[in-house]
């Protein structure tokens, strides 16, 4: 993992001191709310329905055990004992007091963390594949580039006041688990016939009120040109991106309005006249960073673990968890453990301080001291020996962390919605809970198979509903919550935006509607066909007919 150098430490420390001073001036009345709001937002502090909310950056979703323990400590000391892991691989605390916020930032700085660029019209926390460095299909670990981008973009003076917020996602694997096609910039690694690696640069994807899949502007950008090229993109956006209308200010609108070809030629022209054509500094820094991400020393183990196989035979609960929650590791004898934060009827992404500590300890004892936060609001232990899986499972089970639904109907993405969020138009969490309970039967979930149900409580789409195989959007209809259902979205390499199926539903009708949709799928699917494939083969018609037949 990356460790702060003296410069990083000083940078975060100075920022914390600055914010303490700003907070004191706000509390004393020296700063008005209008003056203070942008300052607190630059430090991740929002004002929500019930209290302040602090959004803490987890760069590229990577945490050490010590950092996770500190997150647990903050949850217990300054919040109400829990935190909420978000769809941007961050964590949010829902009950923060303004007067405590500087102390919390100090506590974060102690473990090399902060809340910078988790809000505002800047380059936000860079996200990556949560299986980075461990996945069997990976070409290279994308996190060194993630860290390079963090350092480059942190408080970058030219890119601190963009037309709108800006999100970058990076994947080093052909199977896209980082949703790179629906980010402002998505980077996807490729290897050519000569064995060289290069980045596909995708621009102009995004969700929100105008969902779009990004367009590729470079197929194979050499790694050392990355920063220079991204700077060219940012300059074109900074110059031409609209500032007159907040809803048309994202780069996706610019790319769409002037067209991909024109946008691309503007970027290439900007890139050609870049002021610093040499990339020596970036290369040196990337090499320095990459050393921190050197793979752990893996033991030489057989692919087949006798103890693991025996444990599965003896323990059906463990067997089911192992079938659903393990990912293929690139090293024999190891597995990727996906900890579902989606217990039956639970709140997606919430974890208590105790649960955080259990996960931290498991990472320290069995997982090379590494944890990841996934954009699906789960936690990953990327490197666990197969021989240790039963012990890990038993510890997770004791802490109510062993839901065996990773990637299934119960593994629902949901934003905080109207239960917490000041922007929300409807609640998300109760809908997620109702669906989770509806499919509590594990056999039914296994029968349905791979499925992504994503729920947002407003058009801003923090719950990624547009790219859910089944997407649910909560809206306000004359003071009442109602929910639109979309089908056929995907954030994977064959990304697509879901299509609205028909008229919306009241909150209490949604879980039944989802059941009808899934029953229709089970009736029509071909052998081995996943939900998304069936939908893509058949289109919305049979689902519409089943859902609105009686209407």
């Amino acid at each position, binding site marked *: 993992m990356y460790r702060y150098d003296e410069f990083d430490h000083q940078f975060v420390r100075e920022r914390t001191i600055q914010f303490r001073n700003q907070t004191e001036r706000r*509390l*004393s009345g020296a700063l008005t*709310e209008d003056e203070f709001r942008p300052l607190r937002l630059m430090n991740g502090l929002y004002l929500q329905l*019930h209290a302040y909310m602090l959004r803490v950056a987890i760069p590229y979703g990577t945490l050490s055990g010590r950092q996770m323990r500190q997150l647990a400590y903050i949850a217990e000391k300054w919040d109400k004992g829990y935190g909420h892991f978000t769809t941007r691989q961050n964590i949010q605390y829902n009950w923060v007091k*303004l007067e405590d916020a500087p102390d919390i930032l100090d506590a974060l700085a102690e473990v090399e963390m902060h809340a910078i660029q988790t809000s505002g019209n800047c380059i936000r926390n860079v996200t990556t594949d949560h299986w980075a460095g461990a996945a069997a299909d990976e070409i290279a670990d994308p996190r060194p580039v993630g860290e390079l981008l963090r350092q480059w973009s942190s408080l970058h003076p030219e890119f601190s006041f963009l037309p709108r917020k800006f999100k970058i996602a990076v994947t080093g694997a052909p199977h896209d688990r980082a949703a790179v096609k629906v980010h402002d910039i998505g980077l996807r690694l490729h290897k050519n016939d000569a064995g060289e690696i290069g980045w596909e640069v995708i621009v102009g994807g995004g969700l929100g009120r105008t969902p779009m899949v990004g367009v590729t502007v470079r197929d194979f950008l050499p790694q050392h040109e990355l920063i220079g090229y991204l700077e060219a993109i940012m300059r074109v956006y900074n110059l031409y991106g609209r500032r007159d209308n907040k809803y048309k200010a994202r780069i996706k609108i610019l790319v769409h309005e002037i067209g991909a070809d024109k946008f691309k030629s503007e970027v290439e022209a900007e890139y050609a006249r870049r002021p610093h054509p040499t990339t020596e500094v970036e290369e040196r820094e990337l090499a320095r960073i990459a050393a921190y991400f050197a793979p752990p020393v893996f033991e030489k183990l057989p692919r087949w673990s006798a103890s693991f196989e025996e444990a599965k035979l003896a323990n059906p609960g463990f067997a089911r968890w192992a079938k659903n929650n393990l990912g293929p590791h690139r090293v024999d004898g190891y597995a990727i453990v996906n900890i579902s934060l989606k217990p039956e009827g639970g709140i997606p992404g919430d974890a208590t301080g105790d649960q955080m500590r259990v996960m931290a300890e498991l990472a320290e004892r069995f997982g090379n001291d590494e944890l990841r936060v996934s954009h699906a609001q789960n936690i990953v232990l990327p490197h666990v020996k197969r021989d240790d899986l039963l012990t890990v499972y038993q510890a997770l089970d004791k802490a109510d962390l062993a839901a065996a639904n990773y990637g299934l109907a119960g593994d629902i993405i949901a934003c905080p919605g*109207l*239960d917490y969020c000041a922007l929300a138009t409807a*609640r998300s969490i109760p809908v997620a809970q109702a669906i989770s309970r509806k499919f509590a039967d594990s056999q039914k979930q296994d029968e349905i198979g791979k499925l992504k149900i994503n729920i947002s409580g407003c058009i801003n789409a923090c719950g990624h509903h547009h790219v859910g195989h089944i997407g649910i959007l909560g809206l306000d209809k004359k003071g009442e919550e109602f929910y639109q259902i979309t089908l056929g979205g995907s954030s994977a390499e064959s990304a697509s935006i879901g299509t609205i199926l028909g008229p919306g539903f009241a909150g209490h009708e949604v879980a039944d509607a989802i059941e009808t949709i899934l029953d229709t799928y089970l009736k029509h699917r071909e052998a081995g066909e996943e939900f998304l494939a069936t939908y893509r083969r058949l289109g919305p018609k049979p689902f519409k007919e089943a859902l609105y037949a009686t209407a």
Partner: protein
Amino acid sequence: MTTTEKGQLVTANRLRDGIAVFLTRGGDWSEVIDEAVLALEPQAAAALEARARDDEKKTIVTGAYLVDAERLEGRVRAAHIRERMRALGPTVRLDLGKQSEGKGAGFAAPEGE
């Protein structure tokens, strides 16, 4: 016979901790929506809002605004679900927020389900 008063109240977030609060007849801010003063006509509402702006300047509260509400048998019900939620706490964590501290409103946030 019970009477229903319809009007507007002022709500805000307390500056130092962000807790949702409601302006009372005495000019204080209460965490309990039932203690809110209800303005029954526009002039009274404007007066309440002006008082809230003063308290914003005094750094007591922030983000004050008017909300449609009604009083039934001494309990206050905000018209919009969002405001009923603020007067209670999250509906998915009944153990948290005002509802868990005996300061919750008398009307459930979601109704008609």
